[in-house]
């Protein structure tokens, strides 16, 4: 550069005499640099634009699976009383009032309850929102009717209660809404308070920013935000909370791109669904629809102006303005929102003064999800695991319709611990550990599990004894032995068994000498009596005649799915089962020999209600109806004459019922399994370390079972005899020699035609063929 100086002579007119300034010489380089920078920025913009478009189009939140209890069905004759309906409505967040103006409201009148259901998208179709009156007749519904247009109603199904959810690993929870589902007042409130120029700016709002800047400069600190809804959405969706300049620029660019490519409505709805509005433990409440349920236990569309304004105030600081923890702050904030709405013309001054005078009306506590029924939920997860991996359950927003009956489960939860305490005290074993419990309650018709307890304590979430504690079942195995015998055709209820001490040679030279529980012997006993009073020696006598294999086979036909050891001790229940496995066996007995797999899930749909999977009733007949009928005669006798007669008084409204006590060696396990027409229940009591409980099946589990079943109003058995059943008289006392038979006292028992009592015990007057013919002719003549 210095060299060129002397070469330039003033004499040359064509030469530019001006010396190039340093700036002029830098200019081309600078130009290139700026160009390159612009190019880089352009590429950056294009990339951001591309990213925003791609991501927003495919915007899909990880949504938790939601689980529902079985819905309450109302129809004439439904076993629902006034209190049950009120409890159910309150659990569903219905609001009681002096009138019924819309969905989610009810009114109690002296003779009936009037309500307006919300309607629900069930897996088997849409249940419409309906106005109706319910009249009761004691513990049942007498009648349902709507109004003059709808008249009498045959069947109405309430919405199902949401009992739990399976959360994504992010902990975020939301109920995505469509634009049409968002109340306009909520949109007005959000716009008024967060971004009043939302519909006119282009993603970022210079006016808003300017105003905020001035306000902030004036205050000397940040007192106001200039972010638009679009920017807030971008921030939540893409970026971290890091507040660097680059982030800010990126955020603004993205907001511009978003606004350019998508409609205001799309952006608004995404914002309403995304925004963080509360925290419950590790569950983050996102979006206004979920916030409505979380704070008010009601759907968004049922909220008042004031309630919507409360929610609209939360994005500014969900924990600071938490209406449960800081009602004053939340009220103040709500009124700011309302004032903005008034000032911007969204609401009238009258609406403002009315809404700002309202109480907050948030519910005292949020409905807890996923903690309420952990034992049942464990069963649900086990059942779902066959078809769904945890990823699908955590992220796809599935709706899972379970078989849980809230009335049953709540009664179980409310009853169990005290009931166990009562028998524990009575046991007086002197131990200081807790007697534990497990309960399974199911529906004998469908095999649906209605309630479950995995421990004695309500809501206990640890070791699930109902599913995982495998313990010897003791005498609960006996019905299988007796059913196999009755079905074989070689035995009837009046078959005479020997209840005498016996020693049985086992493989390997060992011997087995079973004993009765009370160490007594009853010598000759009828088969039905041996089962009713749970005699071990008579059962071994029967089982050894029959063959252990047949008893083992019957256990499996009744529904026990694992291997059964073929030892003689199996006859007395030396087989380990979890309570749920026992429940499966007794389910089959309760269904008169029709086995239906126990189920906890009825159906799975997508979040939009599209059916994915349905688990219907299945049933297979595994035993002869006649043999089942005879077995049930003895199983009912357990309550009237046998080991369960101590609770006959407590259950006098409910009898006849059928069931069986079970006690294991050294009183380690106390069992009772029993059933009526509408419920099957299995109760186990014992210590986790296998200690002596001091309880038999009758003094322990039966007491808990009967208390529970009385509260659940278990329905009597109304088992009709199959056609081949006849009733005949036998001598009251079992004997093995005809010359000892005493027909002065007789019993009337059912028999299958063709398998009548032997002459040794029968007290029927034997009619000759001629006599019976004559008898018929006489009857005809009459």
């Amino acid at each position, binding site marked *: 550069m210095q060299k060129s100086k002397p070469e330039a002579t003033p004499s040359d007119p064509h030469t530019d005499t001006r010396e190039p300034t340093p700036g002029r010489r830098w200019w081309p380089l600078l130009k290139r640099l700026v160009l390159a920078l612009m190019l880089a920025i352009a590429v950056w913009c294009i990339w951001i634009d591309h990213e925003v478009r791609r991501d927003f189009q495919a915007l899909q939140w990880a949504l938790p699976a939601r689980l529902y209890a079985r819905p309450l069905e109302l129809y004439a004759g439904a076993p629902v009383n006034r209190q049950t309906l009120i409890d159910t409505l309150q659990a569903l967040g219905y609001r009681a009032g002096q009138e019924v103006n819309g969905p989610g409201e009810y009114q109690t009148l002296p003779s009936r309850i009037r309500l307006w259901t919300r309607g629900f998208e069930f897996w*088997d179709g849409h249940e419409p929102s309906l106005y109706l009156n319910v009249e009761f007749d004691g513990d049942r519904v007498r009648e349902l009717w709507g109004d003059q247009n709808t008249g009498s109603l045959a069947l109405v199904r309430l919405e199902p209660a949401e009992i739990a959810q399976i959360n994504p690993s992010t902990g975020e929870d939301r109920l995505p809404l469509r634009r049409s589902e968002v109340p306009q007042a909520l949109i007005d409130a959000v716009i008024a308070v967060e971004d009043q120029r939302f519909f006119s700016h282009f993603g970022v709002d210079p006016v808003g920013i300017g105003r905020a800047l001035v306000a902030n400069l004036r205050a000397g600190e940040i007192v106001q935000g200039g972010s638009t809804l679009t920017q807030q959405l971008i*921030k939540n969706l893409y970026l971290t909370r890091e507040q660097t300049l680059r982030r800010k620029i990126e955020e603004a660019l993205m907001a511009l791109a978003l606004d350019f490519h998508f409609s205001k409505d799309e952006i608004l709805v995404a914002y309403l669904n995304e925004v963080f509005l509360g925290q419950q433990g590790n569950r983050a409440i996102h979006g206004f629809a979920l916030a409505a349920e979380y704070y008010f236990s009601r759907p968004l569309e049922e909220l008042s102006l004031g309630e919507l304004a409360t929610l609209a105030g939360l994005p500014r600081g969900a924990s600071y303005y938490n209406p449960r923890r800081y009602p004053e702050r939340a009220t103040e904030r709500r009124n700011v929102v309302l004032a903005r709405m008034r000032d911007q013309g969204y609401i009238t001054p009258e609406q403002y003064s009315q809404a700002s005078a309202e109480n907050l009306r948030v519910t005292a506590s949020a409905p807890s999800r996923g903690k309420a029924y952990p034992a049942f939920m464990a069963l649900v997860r086990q059942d779902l695991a066959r078809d769904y991996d945890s990823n699908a359950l955590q992220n796809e927003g599935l709706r899972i319709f379970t078989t849980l009956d809230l009335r049953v489960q709540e009664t179980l939860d409310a009853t169990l611990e005290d009931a166990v305490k009562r028998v524990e005290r009575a046991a007086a074993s002197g131990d200081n550990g807790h007697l534990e419990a497990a309960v399974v309650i199911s529906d004998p018709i469908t095999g649906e599990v209605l309630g479950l307890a995995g421990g004695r304590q309500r809501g206990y979430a640890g070791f699930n004894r109902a599913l995982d504690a495998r313990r010897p079942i003791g005498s609960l195995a006996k019905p299988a032995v007796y059913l196999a015998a009755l079905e074989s055709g070689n035995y009837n209820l009046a078959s005479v068994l020997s209840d005498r001490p016996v020693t049985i040679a086992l493989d390997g030279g060992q011997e087995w000498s079973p004993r009765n529980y009370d160490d007594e012997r009853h010598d000759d006993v009828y088969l039905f009596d041996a089962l009713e009073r749970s005699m071990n020696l008579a059962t071994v006598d029967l089982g050894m005649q029959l063959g252990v294999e047949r008893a083992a086979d019957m256990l499996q036909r009744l529904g026990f799915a694992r291997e059964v050891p073929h030892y003689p001790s199996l006859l007395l229940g030396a087989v380990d089962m979890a309570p749920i496995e026992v429940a499966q066996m007794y389910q089959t007995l309760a269904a008169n020999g029709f086995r239906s797999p126990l189920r906890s899930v009825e159906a799975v749909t997508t979040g939009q209600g599209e059916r994915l999977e349905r688990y219907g*009733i299945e049933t*297979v007949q595994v035993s002869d109806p006649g043999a089942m009928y005879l077995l049930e005669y003895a199983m009912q006798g357990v309550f009237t004459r046998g080991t369960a007669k101590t609770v006959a008084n407590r259950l006098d409204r409910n009898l006849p019922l059928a069931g069986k006590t079970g006690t294991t060696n050294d009183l380690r396990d106390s069992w009772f399994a029993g059933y009526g027409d509408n419920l099957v229940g299995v109760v186990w009591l014992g210590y986790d370390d296998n200690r002596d409980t001091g309880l038999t099946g009758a003094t322990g589990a039966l007491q808990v079972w009967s208390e529970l079943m009385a509260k659940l109003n278990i329905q009597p058995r109304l088992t009709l005899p199959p056609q081949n059943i006849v009733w005949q008289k036998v001598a009251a006392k079992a004997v093995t020699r005809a010359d000892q038979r005493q027909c002065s006292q007789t019993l009337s028992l059912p028999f299958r035609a063709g398998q009548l009592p032997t002459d040794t015990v029968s007290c029927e007057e034997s009619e000759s063929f001629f006599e019976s013919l004559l008898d018929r002719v006489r009857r005809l003549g009459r």
Partner: protein
Amino acid sequence: MIERVCLVLSLSLLSACATYSGRGVPAPVEDRGTGTVVTPAASPRPDAGSSVTRAVENTPEPVRDTRPADETPIVRSPSTVNPAPTEPAPPAMPATASSTLLAGVDAAIAEGDLERAAALCERALRITPRDALLWYRLASVRAQQGRVNEAEGFARRALSFSANDPALTRQINGFLQGL
């Protein structure tokens, strides 16, 4: 182009200064409410009064027969219809829960949604579990779906309740033979 980029950059810078106080951060009451007034939207508001004409509750409670008299007709949202696709029952025989569900079963079969038909049968069975006809209905739905084993189970269960209906018993036995 340069202008646009500059605009974006400056806006971003500005917005960076006017930081939106994020989630969970306590913020004092703001004051930016003097700006543009937006015309209120014309759409209905949840608190704007219900479209329902309420029934006036007369005391004492009306007798059952006269009860509709105290119910003023109610104007309902269009979605509010009868609970299930009910066949209009003859006035002498009001629809029962079972008959309503059975009508739904027919409708579902007509639509070709056999799984829904089966589900409605099951719902009806929870209400009247000893109804042989319902079990038989379920059996025939399963048979139509080609689920023969299940059909057999349900038909046998139907038989266990059909003793007092010889015609139905014959029909079920015929069905079982046909499987």
